[in-house]
């Protein structure tokens, strides 16, 4: 079986540190090159941050499930949450040419993920969102 690391996070920004550390441990263990490692960290941070910020209408605690695996030549990341349906492939691209005073930061995180990972897929399974990202390792 492919080496896999799983962790469960609370929908609390304070838990992002746990994500960073778990991802770093996984990346170190797998000897992943620094640039692929940074893309992995970024993809996870952006998707999980988005879930924490926007997925829930209530104040109740929720669990966000994250897995990282190394398969044949590729890092496979998965983020699952039980929040409102959100397909990161369907968000409009942010306006990138506006001058500083009109520039908005909205949508940049998802835009970065879409540009940096090699494959991004989304499915709604029951009442859960499932985002899978694939990042190719150098051959």
């Amino acid at each position, binding site marked *: 079986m492919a080496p896999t690391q799983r962790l469960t996070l609370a929908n609390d920004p304070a838990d992002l*540190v746990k994500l960073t550390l778990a991802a770093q441990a996984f990346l170190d*263990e797998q*000897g992943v090159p*620094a640039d692929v*490692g940074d893309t992995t960290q*970024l993809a996870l941070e952006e998707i999980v941050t988005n879930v924490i910020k926007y997925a829930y209408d209530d104040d109740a605690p929720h669990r966000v499930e994250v897995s990282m695996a190394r398969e044949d030549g590729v890092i496979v990341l998965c983020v699952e949450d039980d929040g409102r349906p959100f397909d990161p492939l369907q968000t409009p691209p942010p306006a990138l040419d506006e001058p500083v005073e009109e520039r908005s930061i909205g949508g*940049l*995180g998802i835009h*970065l993920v879409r540009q*940096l990972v090699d494959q991004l897929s989304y499915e709604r399974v029951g009442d859960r969102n499932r985002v899978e990202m694939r990042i190719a390792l150098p051959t």
Partner: protein
Amino acid sequence: MRSGYRRRLHPRERKLRRDPPTANDPHGESVVSVHPEPPSLDINVERHDGHVVVHPVGRLDATNGPALDQALEDVFDGGANRFVLDMSGIAYISSLGLAVLLRGAKRAKGEGGRISLCALQDGVTKVFEISGFFVLFDCFETRAEALAALTSPGQGD
């Protein structure tokens, strides 16, 4: 104890760190999972030729972004609205880090000032390109060039 991101380490050394352990690196592997330390951001605020240089070292992410945000606010509140942000110590930036930089750029612009960036690493350059951030900032190779740009007329004046 060792963390994934050691403090005050030159970025090039950081890359080397991810290589397999050697005789000179007796800590070896797997220390990260034993004593994980939160990846940190140290923020040095220096003065150079009468200008403020903000020099953050570490990760500019969701966890550490607020610290830089506060540091930039403090610089503005201290009366400086033209300063250099030396990015040489930042190998990783996420959208939360970009948000901090954008807030700084907006405030500088609003006050008729300017933030000059210098020494962007490859990973940050890539994120800037994808995010259209080179439109928002004057970026220079070296700190000296960034400082010189603060005193010369140009874009934004």
